[in-house]
């Protein structure tokens, strides 16, 4: 995807997320639009940084750094960012993301149907393993640290 394409994609996706916020979470129109606008803006800026800063760090890294920095207490725009982005529910964005995720399933379904039940059992074990092992260790560590 070229740059114009990326920007346009985000504008479309941001608009969809804003509409879902309005319809599903009763967020006022302007709050939803501004909130999603801020999220899209930070994301695009992060993608751009990942392109121009040498070192080939992944986009996730720069997007996260920017998002975190923009909302830390030292940031001059922290209040503005926080006020509007809290109105965009995390779950609303999830629904939009998984709508697209669902629409990509079809291209893999032919391959999927050829798979044996064994590999499906292994896949379930892999996902369960990573989630439960990490949760288990986190539970112990948080107790040891006295956080919970």
């Amino acid at each position: 995807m070229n740059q114009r394409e990326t920007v346009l994609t985000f504008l479309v996706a941001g608009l969809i997320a804003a509409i879902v916020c309005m319809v599903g979470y009763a967020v006022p129109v302007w709050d939803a639009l501004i909130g999603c606008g801020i999220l899209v803006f930070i994301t695009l800026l992060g993608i751009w940084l990942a392109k121009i800063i040498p070192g080939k760090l992944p986009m996730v890294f720069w997007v996260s750094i920017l998002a975190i920095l923009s909302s830390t207490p030292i940031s001059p725009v922290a209040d503005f960012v926080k006020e509007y982005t809290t109105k965009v529910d995390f779950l609303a964005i999830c629904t939009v993301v998984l709508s697209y995720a669902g629409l990509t399933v079809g291209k893999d379904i032919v391959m999927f149907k050829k798979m044996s039940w064994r590999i499906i059992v292994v896949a379930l074990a892999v996902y369960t393993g990573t989630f439960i092992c990490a949760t288990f260790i986190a539970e112990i560590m948080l107790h040891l640290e006295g956080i919970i």
Partner: protein
Amino acid sequence: MDVLKNWKIHIIALILAIISELIGVKKIPVGPGVLLFLPMLYAMILGGIISWPKLKMIKAGEMKHATSVLSLLTLILVTKLGVIIGPSLNKVAEAGFALSIQELGHFLGTVVLGLPIAIALGLGRESVGATFSIDREPNIAIIAEKYGLDSAEGRGVMAIYICGTVFGAIWIGLIAGFLAAMHIFHPYALAMGSGVGSGSMMAAATGAIATVFPEQKEQILMYAGASNLLTTIVGIYFCLFVSLPITNYLYKRLSPILSPNRLKKGGASQ
């Protein structure tokens, strides 16, 4: 302009998301826990049905476009989590040690549970590719470079990748909601566990946990976001330098014990 050419997919995504939100959260008690159905799960399933090749509602090119849109969109989730982490960065830093150590669970949990099962079910070297990591795009790149995607290891990693696309988020969302409702683990621990390093799986798990514990939603999103960030960034290096060698070592050790027949038939390398 691909976005405008593929307008149909965006309209469908919007309609699916709205329908899913209007259905709302549904809970079905099962045994000691609860099966929690969130709007995002309906969105995923409805999308899957619409994209079913036999229905011919969506063309292959449009699905390809949706895939590239999806990889960008997950970044908005990352941003949303980032702006939640920012205001309480000191809290995240306080839990920094716990966050770092639990990453071992993310990286090695796939091997610990997956590898013995894979070997016992009779998979050969496929089990190494299948279980050395959660098998998303960066992990495929590692296997592709080391063994090639035509190898047994390559087939293993691709198979789990496809399973992940088809039902990964649904599965992990359901087990996260189920475990959360059982109240064995603290919501913060579950939140950290949710940061599995795949955008849609993380979303499904975190959403489920936040729905079970609505009063701690902000902290849950904060810890999940921080954990997912660590998994994504450290993951590539950890999988390459630690997980893969460990998986290979364990495969050699466990195969004779768990799958002795395979060795007798001389098929251990296959």
